[in-house]
């Protein structure tokens, strides 16, 4: 599929940020993925379960198995409706929130198996529950297309990518948040961590 004039212009803008053109390779792949989605076919929601040791110690393997079973796909697969892709990934650098599950790279931490299943159930209904740090300002990208746009470095995704935002997509309040906030740490003011 040929790229549109708009996409080509954006590609040139990304290339122009670097002293050598080839450096823009990853941003360009993200851009093409956002525009066409053919670099790596994924559903609207990419669910990534961390499989590294700290998360395995807290049951991540059981989570990913349960999600694959519910979606009836192997790891890396997309459910029959095309809505949700589930994968296992390496350490997501949020080990205090183990087990960590991401939706479109936003964290849902300390999930029980039931909570992980509820999360996926809502995604299948095109609802995006607010992520664990919603109260602090974290927002889940409304679609993988919007995510890849942002990852390319072009800033806020345009409406036609973001308009897939589900009703109930969270920003701000964390009233119906799935999962729980970390229990400790120097920055933790949510649960009264008393170390600092």
């Amino acid at each position, binding site marked *: 599929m040929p790229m549109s004039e708009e996409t080509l212009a954006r590609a040139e803008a990304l290339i122009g940020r670097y002293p050598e053109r080839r450096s823009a390779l990853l941003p360009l792949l993200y851009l093409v993925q956002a525009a066409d989605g053919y670099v*790596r076919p994924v559903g609207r929601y990419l669910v990534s379960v961390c499989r590294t040791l700290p998360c*395995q110690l807290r049951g991540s393997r059981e989570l990913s198995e349960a999600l694959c079973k519910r979606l009836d796909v192997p790891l890396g697969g997309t459910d029959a409706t095309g809505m949700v892709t589930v994968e296992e990934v390496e350490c997501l650098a949020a080990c205090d929130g183990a087990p960590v599950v991401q939706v479109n790279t936003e964290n849902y931490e300390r999930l029980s198996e039931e909570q992980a299943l509820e999360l996926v159930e809502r995604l299948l209904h095109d609802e995006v529950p607010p992520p664990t740090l919603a109260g602090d300002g974290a927002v889940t990208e409304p679609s993988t297309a919007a995510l890849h746009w942002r*990852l390319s470095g072009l800033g806020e995704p345009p409406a036609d990518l973001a308009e897939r935002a589900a009703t109930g997509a969270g920003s701000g309040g964390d009233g119906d948040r799935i999962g729980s906030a970390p229990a400790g*740490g120097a920055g*933790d003011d949510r649960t009264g961590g008393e170390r600092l």
Partner: protein
Amino acid sequence: MTSADGSAPQVQPVSVLSSRWRDGLAHGFDRYLELDGYASLDDAFAKDPAELVQIVKDSGLRGRGGAGFPTGMKWGFLAKGTGKPTYLVVNADESEPGTFKDMELLERDPHALVEGTIVSAYAIGCNQAFIYLRGECGFAGRRLAAAIGEAYEHGLLGRDIKGSGFDLDVVLHRGAGAYICGEETALLSSLEGQRGQPKLRPPFPAVEGLYRAPTTVNNVETIASVPWIFRKGVDWFRSMGTEKSPGPKLFSVSGEVQRPGNYEYPLGTPARELIMGAGGGMLDGKTLKAWTPGGSSTPLLTPDHLDTPMDFESIQGAGSLLGTAAMIVLSEDVCVVGACLKDICDSIFGRSFCALGDGAVSPIVSALQYFREEFDQHVEGHGCPFGTAQALLGGRGGSELPPHGSGDNATSASPSNTRQGAR
């Protein structure tokens, strides 16, 4: 190291790198300024760059990304008079398993990295910096992108910053889930749009780095430490930590503890204080069996090592490495054979091409040293003495991991390797 009653001494946490984390609004430019943000620019611009490099050398600051190389010395190696630009590349590709300090810093205090990037770039004569960020860390990416944008809006990035005549542009570059890209030569290859593979050194990046120009690659926490040193001085910095490992440090405590989290303490704080104190001790009913001092690529230590000070020299003396100071805590309920072999499988099946492959063997070597009997039980046909081995191995060994070279570097998260190297 023990007090009269035999208990470990209480070491107090410090509040430097994490001092703005609990503010809740420090990620915004205005609030950051109210909290003395960007104050180090005036200190830095008033001095000659060479003097600043000397200050960092004198401070004894060592890289916080794993290798612990002295930062000022690294900067001093940058080739001069090459006719090429000098590049600063900030390594925000945090991916050593168990490490989550840089991402929390970027989520809560992203301007601290921008400020550090400005004064560090000024010190080394760099006008174009890159921040290589893990693509998978969505919230950190949003916060950092916003902070960079605000810094440009307020004239703290771009041309003639605060009338100093110093220009700096910063490009935020998002990686694509390749563990190896945390290694500095692989990171630079990836940033050039090449396949993210490590290169043999020499030439070192300080001579031939990004675009074959002099380049320094520094970790987020390292760069965020620099403004503090410029503002508060070498003596203040050295008032924390040990002679050879000075300063404050973010420790990531995870695994089977009550309060996993990032905790800021002076380097040299006994591991016991971090695991049993800050981390709240073991989960109910669990007994400590082993812990990593610096992420899963560092050799395991045991309860016998709990009074070891968490600094580069002491941990090395105990037979391990401080690495990223990521302390993954394992209980007696965990089969070390399973945990360890899982890592090995990931390493070998994921990426055998790695100039820093030592990390791949360290978990198994240390596990054999301290938990020999578990290996013996497996080998002697009794099977795994724990129910958890299957869980930790996931019942799949390594056979479902992609073969070498089959991963899609551009878009898929790759299986991890283990690495202990120059970050």
